[in-house]
């Protein structure tokens, strides 16, 4: 086993990108993800990589575009307001079918908001964010180790599907320090990129563009994109269920609030309440079928999120047609969700839905 080291989420994800063979980082500083920019500025030159502190997030995402189009692995990172600025570029990446990894360490919004941890960019991340009919694969890690593993996965998925992949974390995940293992954990699955613009001597020229004006051409392009998104939905849904089998009350949470839920689950299980947890790991594609099966015997569902009610919409869609009540514990505004708040919400659900000890 490789040696574990102590790193904050932001540093760990940076080193993971380098371990994954990424040699291009472009970004603009913003709290709570500044450690990424800082780490990359030191580390990229050591591995003969490119580090550019761009003049804005708009420039950063377009530098990523430039690196991706010639076949390089590229990453950028930011936090909520900066990610909003990148949306145009992400739409272009999706339209041109370019692989890229974008990390959003979310903070409180809307607007400049604050620097506290938040999950309020769920809609933006899972519904497209920019213009046009497109999807980004969205990964939601809940520990520093999983964040590292998701960086590896993100690069592989981006290359496999020629699609931007977003890693959605919050300020706590970026800042917290945990033991983590990086070196040797990534089994590289690099694929040749025949589509890349690498100079066309001796072969037909490649074209990468999102301006498609011919009659029905854009329609065809969109149909192909949708077909690709269906393939991703079929192959890449990921989730985790904890003691969901016999759960009468099913908690649903992703990212750091899922850890708080896990602790609450242990506590209520000790008191002989049948509480379970469902954690979507991919937010798009959302693991609807797995959620429906985890909620099979549930008499109530409690969605826990650090936003005012965004994840709950996907939960409702997944459980459409089911009579089970779906409650919300949503905490917006860049404030940390406390264990006591989750406990209180569970108590309330237990009494409201008449759940009994076993």
């Amino acid at each position, binding site marked *: 086993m490789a040696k*574990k080291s*102590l790193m*904050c989420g932001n540093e760990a994800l940076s080193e993971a990108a380098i371990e994954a063979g990424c040699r291009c980082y472009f970004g603009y500083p913003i*709290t*709570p993800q500044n450690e990424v920019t800082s780490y990359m500025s030191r580390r990229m030159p050591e591995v003969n990589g490119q580090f550019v502190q761009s003049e804005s997030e708009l420039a950063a995402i377009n530098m990523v575009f430039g690196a991706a189009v010639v076949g390089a692995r590229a990453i950028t990172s930011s936090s909520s307001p900066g990610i909003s600025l990148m949306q145009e570029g992400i739409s272009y990446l999706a339209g041109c079918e370019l692989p890229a990894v974008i990390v959003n360490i979310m903070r409180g919004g809307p607007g400049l908001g604050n*620097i506290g941890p938040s999950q309020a960019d769920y809609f933006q991340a899972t519904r497209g964010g920019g213009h046009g009919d497109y999807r980004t694969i969205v990964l939601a890690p809940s520990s520093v180790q999983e964040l590292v593993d998701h960086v590896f996965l993100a690069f592989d998925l981006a290359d496999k599907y020629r699609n931007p992949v977003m890693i959605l974390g919050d*300020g*706590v995940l970026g*800042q*917290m*320090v*945990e*033991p983590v293992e990086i070196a040797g954990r990534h089994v590289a699955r690099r694929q040749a990129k025949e589509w890349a613009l690498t100079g066309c001597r001796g072969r037909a020229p490649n074209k990468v563009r999102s301006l498609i004006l011919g009659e029905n051409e854009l329609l065809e392009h969109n149909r192909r994109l949708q077909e690709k998104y269906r393939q991703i939905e079929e192959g890449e849904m990921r989730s985790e269920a904890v003691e969901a089998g016999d759960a009468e009350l099913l908690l649903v949470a992703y990212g*750091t609030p899922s*850890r*708080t839920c*896990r*602790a*609450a689950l242990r506590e209520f299980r000790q008191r002989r309440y049948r509480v379970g947890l469902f954690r979507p790991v991919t937010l798009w594609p959302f693991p609807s079928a797995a959620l429906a099966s985890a909620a099979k015997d549930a008499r109530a569902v409690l969605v826990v999120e650090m936003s005012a009610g965004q994840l709950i919409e996907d939960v409702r869609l997944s459980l459409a047609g089911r009579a089970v009540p779906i409650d919300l514990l949503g905490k917006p505004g860049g404030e*940390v*969700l*406390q*264990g*006591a708040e989750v406990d209180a919400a569970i108590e309330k659900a237990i009494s409201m839905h008449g759940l009994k000890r076993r």
Partner: protein
Amino acid sequence: MGRVQQERLIIAGFGGQGIMFMGKLLCCAGMLEGRHVTYMPSYGAEVRGGTAYCNVIVSDEEIPSPVVAEPTAAIIMNTPSLIKFEPMLAKKGLIIINSALVDRPAKRRDVEPIHIPATNIADRLGNTRVANMVALGAFLAKRDVVQMQTALAAVEEMLPPYRRHLVEINRQALGEGKSFVESRSADAIWGKITRGFGFG
């Protein structure tokens, strides 16, 4: 003193007092002993000379949230930190107070305070900046979260090569903090005995 199953600790003081180093050190020592650990700094819009603090959890079990709401212990290096964090402490929580810089004792009666002039002790050792290690030594003397020798190993692991010469004074500082607490409790026991025999 039994092994602590889960310690939820807040360490707080001025920026520059080595608050974050203390937190990471404890975290590193916990990791070396194979326990679950998390560390979470206060981040962002902090001001120079303001309060810097971090949350550390060392546990036998998986740690839910790295954010400490109700600390089981606190190490308080300056007055503003005492004002901010004393009310948050869990009942029977341990509070180590750097009495050299904190101008009042703990107010609560349901917590266990240790007042230690950490900065003065560090000055006597010849480096005011090891006050953090004095306080940490006092903490480890009271709470078996990690072994003192593991804390020392963590110091060696965490100090960069150009600071290797500081290992020794950090070791001394940890030791001074520990003996301060131990001598106090020895006094207390001796006091009880003498009172018990009617000498006090």
